[in-house]
């Protein structure tokens, strides 16, 4: 079992593209964490370990193309390898949804990226769904509801 404290998505240029907080942090702490982690993780070489200690917890990150997926987890109770798997599941789901996801897809469809993340992790940071098909089915159901809602609105 793993319970993620936060997930950040940072570009190679150091810009935070997505952030989701599953533990209570005030805005000052949030900006401090995202600023410090962006610098810290971006400075690491490709062959360095993907797990590092930060403040009172651990940080697990993985790079995909020009994006770094960074997760904060509890030092004692959470599993680092499982966290890497959670990140990978999330990336796979986005990859299938967007047809080879890139940074631009996330910038222009950030709400979709959040929706997919919501299907992977629930509000306390624990994993809710591992099946990529199930995740995509839920997101697509939401899409069709949204489309028919828009259609109703236009036709009304």
């Amino acid at each position, binding site marked *: 079992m793993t319970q993620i404290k936060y997930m950040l998505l940072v570009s190679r240029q150091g810009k935070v593209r997505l952030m989701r907080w599953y533990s209570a942090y005030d805005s000052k702490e949030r900006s401090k964490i995202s600023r410090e982690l962006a610098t810290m993780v971006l400075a690491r070489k490709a062959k360095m370990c993907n797990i590092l200690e930060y403040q009172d917890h651990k940080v697990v990150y993985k790079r995909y193309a020009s994006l770094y997926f960074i997760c904060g987890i509890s030092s004692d109770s959470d599993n680092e390898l499982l966290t890497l798997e959670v990140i990978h599941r999330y990336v796979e789901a986005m990859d299938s949804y*967007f*047809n080879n996801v890139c*940074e631009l897809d996330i910038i222009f469809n950030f709400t979709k990226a959040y929706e997919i993340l919501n299907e992977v992790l629930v509000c306390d940071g624990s994993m809710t769904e591992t099946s990529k098909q199930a995740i995509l089915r839920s997101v697509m159901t939401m899409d069709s509801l949204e489309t028919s809602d828009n259609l109703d609105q236009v*036709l009304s």
Partner: protein
Amino acid sequence: MATGLYVDESRSTKGWSEKLRDKVLIVFSDKVANREEILFEVFGVEDNAGKQIHRDVVWTTKYYNVTLDVYVDSFSSLKDWTREFCDPDLDELREVIAGWIIVLPFNGNIDEETKALTQLKSCATSKDFFTAILATELNVSENTRAFLEYELLEGAIELVQDEVGSDSELGEVSGLDRVKEIIDTCEWHPRLLRTTHPKSEINVGSAGADTPLIQIMGRLREARTKYMAMDPGLSREEFASEMARELSRFL
């Protein structure tokens, strides 16, 4: 550097209190041999007789396109160029650039380049524009490279090596493709952006890959707005019938 670069005020600033960042500056070292190739590959412009400003270059991605000016410059000494670029006289230029790219080789002892880039980092970087260094050669020790990358990173400057191929495990693009990706993800001012609808790029579930649903929705919205704005009468009903016929062709 005898730049000759100047800002075309009539286009970028006139009528707006805020300056639009619609210029990309690309600067080449004299040692770079394939300048024409790089310019053409990245921006699709030809380096005619050392032309310094290429106007109205259309940058297109699957989500938007934007019209920008490409400013081309060159230097023999990065130190001198940096000093001049950081000069307050060029404040106006720095305020309208969307980003800069410096193309140069790194060979052997790179102390001078490192010093110049450190200066550049402190005076000509901002979160408002992108900054990248394209290294046509990177023949330095691993430690020097790591140091250089770290130094540049502090100023949010990305070091891109001009190399062929990519690390398939990370799915990362490199070289000129990465430079293009950096420009793609630049935060352009909304007034500069013209959005395009990517067709069938996203799996929109039940919509089906061939149905231009977004297009139909857009047309419906436009038609509804126009219909509501028209005065009641025959012309309004004719317009409604015409739109119904047009849209039924999609269904």
